[in-house]
């Protein structure tokens, strides 16, 4: 099968409008004959489900939390980008498009990114109409801040809780449709397989997490809005339940997986404090607007700080190494995430780290507080500072924060065409679950934008084109394909429950995570990746012989839930390593040590790697097959990314 991205013809800025015009429509009276399954209630899922129900489709929505409002999107802090140019600082749709393509290190599709920038402005209008309380100026108009990788202020925010407010907006729209009966809601229900009938996605198999019931749901199309897979690293900023199962199962049913090795390591997270650590906490990137990143210039000083004999505040100005400001004078502390993270790693590798493990750098607000006053800083970041203090027991108004990079976001995901359809007809992927718009590195405040763009403004159009070509006849959930998938799921569960080995699911998860972090994290090389490949194969074999899962299926069983997820993470980990091995270049978050410029920046190879790597599953004991979608750049010139 050749990959067809279905990018519309014509000039960049007209592609989306023309495409919308050319798409077939389902007439209003017919919409009620079509059923759509939406898995996930984050920004992508909730916005899609609400919008599709408003149009008249019958929607079934699923999430594994006890309420749709708790999807992981709720945790996003910093903000959402939109090319409104409300600050009159030279922003435009084209500039947002350009920044995103460049920020992604030229590994995203131009047409998708331009569409994203176009609809970004509608998102803000939509959210305000729903009552999302964005930050405002005294004059009553909306306020903006700037984020990494951009030189304009285009980020809209709601204190440090932007994701929460946007998600509650989408959740309220969804709730309104639940009340009308157009949406049927299934909480505490986990999708465990995708079902194809005659080559088309026609439904899913789920497990009721309270009773253990394995059930089938049929529909005319399935939307996977199930978020990212950062938890393959065990420690990440993702919510504990975030997982890859839905997309991985779709992958095994024929959906190609795009750029799995593209992960984002966020520079500003609270460092690891001990072996008990269950997750990492992000300190929003917006802090880099006012905080200055530094380490001691001399190893001796760093050593004293690590031992506790020297305090950060006692170190004089010339003994501080503001490494981002010095190395990147024009962007300074606001360089993109991949650059900031890698530099933090480098200074810590040079033994300049400042916590007891030597794995932390300072983020210092001393100068900002001196300049603007503590109240101003409190108004901007109060809740983040509180959170920091609660976790670390240190007061960031008085002593600099300590931060270290952590896994945060996955640019990779299911490959989708311009219509957001995967390689399985009728199966779509939206939000972080797809690979689409961020290339090899996502800019801050662009994931919220993409999730809502996909859900509110893209899928409601593109799905019509697919459904209009399809008879409204339903497939019954008792169809043999559903029964077969149910049996497979039951068998997987029974196997896990009957192994009764010696190690817990968490032990395997931590082992896998450490391998991924050490060899497929911030820096990668051939030798390390080969080692990881072998270790993951061993972990997989051992897991299926020696894992201990307690209890039974017919109950609320969190041990079983985790086991099902970790089993899929192990397989995904192997594919990520494979993808990282094959991409013999450095770009964005994918830093191959063998490929760097003289001053240590990522060295792309546009001749050989300006493509999307899309992997096809061929069977459990077969190697996956690599397909390439060539990326064509007609509007931006590929240059060495420079933030100097």
């Amino acid at each position: 099968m050749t990959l067809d991205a279905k990018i519309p013809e014509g000039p960049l800025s007209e592609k989306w409008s023309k495409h919308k015009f050319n798409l077939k429509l389902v007439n209003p009276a017919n919409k009620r004959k079509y059923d759509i399954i939406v898995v996930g209630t984050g920004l992508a899922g909730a916005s899609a489900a609400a919008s599709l129900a408003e149009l008249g489709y019958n929607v079934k929505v699923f999430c594994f939390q006890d309420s749709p409002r708790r999807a992981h999107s709720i945790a996003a802090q910093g903000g959402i980008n939109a090319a409104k140019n409300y600050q009159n600082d030279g922003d435009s749709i084209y500039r947002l498009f350009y920044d995103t393509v460049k920020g992604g290190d030229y590994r995203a599709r131009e047409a998708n990114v331009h569409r994203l920038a176009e609809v970004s402005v509608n998102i803000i209008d939509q959210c305000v109409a729903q009552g999302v309380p964005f930050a405002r100026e005294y004059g009553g108009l909306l306020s903006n801040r700037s984020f990494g990788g951009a030189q304009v202020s285009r980020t809209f925010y709601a204190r440090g809780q932007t994701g929460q407010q946007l998600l509650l907006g989408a959740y309220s729209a969804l709730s309104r449709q639940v009340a009308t009966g157009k949406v049927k809601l299934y909480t505490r229900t986990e999708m465990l397989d995708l079902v194809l009938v005659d080559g088309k996605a026609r439904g899913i198999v789920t497990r009721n997490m309270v009773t253990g019931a394995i059930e089938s749901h049929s529909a005319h199309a399935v939307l996977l809005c199930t978020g990212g897979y950062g938890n393959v690293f065990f420690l990440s900023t993702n919510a504990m339940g975030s997982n890859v199962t839905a997309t991985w199962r779709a992958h095994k049913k024929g959906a190609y997986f795009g750029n799995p090795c593209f992960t984002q390591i966020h520079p500003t997270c609270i460092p690891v404090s001990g072996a008990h650590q269950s997750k990492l906490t992000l300190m929003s990137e917006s802090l880099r607007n006012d905080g200055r990143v530094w380490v001691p210039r001399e190893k001796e000083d760093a050593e004293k700080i690590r031992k506790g004999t020297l305090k950060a505040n006692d170190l004089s100005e010339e003994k501080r190494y503001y490494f981002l400001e010095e190395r990147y004078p024009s962007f300074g502390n606001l360089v993109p995430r991949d650059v900031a993270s890698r530099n933090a790693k480098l200074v810590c590798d040079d033994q300049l780290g400042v916590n007891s493990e030597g794995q932390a750098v300072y983020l210092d607000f001393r100068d900002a507080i001196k300049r603007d006053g503590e109240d101003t800083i409190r108004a901007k970041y109060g809740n983040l500072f509180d959170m920091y203090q609660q976790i670390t027991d240190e007061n960031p108004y008085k002593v600099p924060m300590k931060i270290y990079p952590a896994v945060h976001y996955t640019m990779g995901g299911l490959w989708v065409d311009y219509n957001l359809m995967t390689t399985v007809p009728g199966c779509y992927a939206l939000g972080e679950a797809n690979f689409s718009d961020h290339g090899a590195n996502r800019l801050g405040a662009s994931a919220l934008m993409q999730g809502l763009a996909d859900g509110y403004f893209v899928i409601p159009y593109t799905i019509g084109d697919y459904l209009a070509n399809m008879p409204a006849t339903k497939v019954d959930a008792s169809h043999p394909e559903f029964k077969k998938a149910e049996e497979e799921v039951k068998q997987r569960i029974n196997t896990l429950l009957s192994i009764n080995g010696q190690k817990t699911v968490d032990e395997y998860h931590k082992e896998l995570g450490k391998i991924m972090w050490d060899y497929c994290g911030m820096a990668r090389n051939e030798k390390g990746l080969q080692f990881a490949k072998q270790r993951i194969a061993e972990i997989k074999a051992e897991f299926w012989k020696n894992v201990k899962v307690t209890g039974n299926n017919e109950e609320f069983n969190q041990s079983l839930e985790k086991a099902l997820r970790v089993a899929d993470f192990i397989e995904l980990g192997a594919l990520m390593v494979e993808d990282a091995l094959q991409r013999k270049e450095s770009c964005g978050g994918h830093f191959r040590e063998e490929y760097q410029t003289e001053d240590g920046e990522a060295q792309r190879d546009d001749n050989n790697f300006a493509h999307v790597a899309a992997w096809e599953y061929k069977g459990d004991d077969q190697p996956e097959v690599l397909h390439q979608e060539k990326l064509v750049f007609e509007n931006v010139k590929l240059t060495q990314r420079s933030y100097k």
Partner: protein
Amino acid sequence: MKLTLKIWRQKNSQDKGKMVEYKLNDVSADMSFLEMLDVLNEELTLKGEDPVAFDHDCREGICGMCSLYINGKPHGPKQTTTCQLHMRSFNDGDTIYIEPWRAKAFPVVKDLAVDRGAFDRIIQAGGYISVNTGVTVDANEIPIAKEIADKAFDAATCIGCGACVAACKNASAMLFVSAKVSQFTLLPQGKAERKRRVEAMVEQMDEEGFGACTNTGACAAECPKEISLENIARLNREYLFAKLTSNNV
């Protein structure tokens, strides 16, 4: 530090349930409360016993999923969520009692996990502004005074955890409902539906079996997001106003 834990164990909603005692010997002060329970669960699993079920997801104090009643207080001794509570708030040798939220409207699912679907149904009854996707004006055409926007934001930060209900001797959901009503009452976008909204949400709240509000303020004292009692006063005014000027005109 060493701890004695007394934890509510209940197999499912039908089971009667009871307190069971566990000992933990090696708890570090830097652990979060939930990480402490992770350690217990790892030990139980290795012994082949059923780990303790509890709800959690973000572990950042924002999703509202975690929900433990610790030593007689929802979310424990500090005014934060359970996931943001750290073991440094406890002492070596302490005995800690851990129970689920207790309210008729929040039935226990298993052990410490409860069903808070009632909150979703209250929002479905009216906790929204009726606007379809794409049918909007430019965002800056609705200027909103900063003070008003900030107040609406304060109300909107409710995470739907249910601690207010667990704290209240009547298991009233007034603080939760009033936070949503306030957010939309304060904003110009929400004004059009204000009467219908408050009536519908209060009616659903009663239907779900939450108790009456007797203004003791236990809810606000325990709310991890510091949702203020002012919101309840506003809800009462809105409700009265809606009833007095009924027919929704």
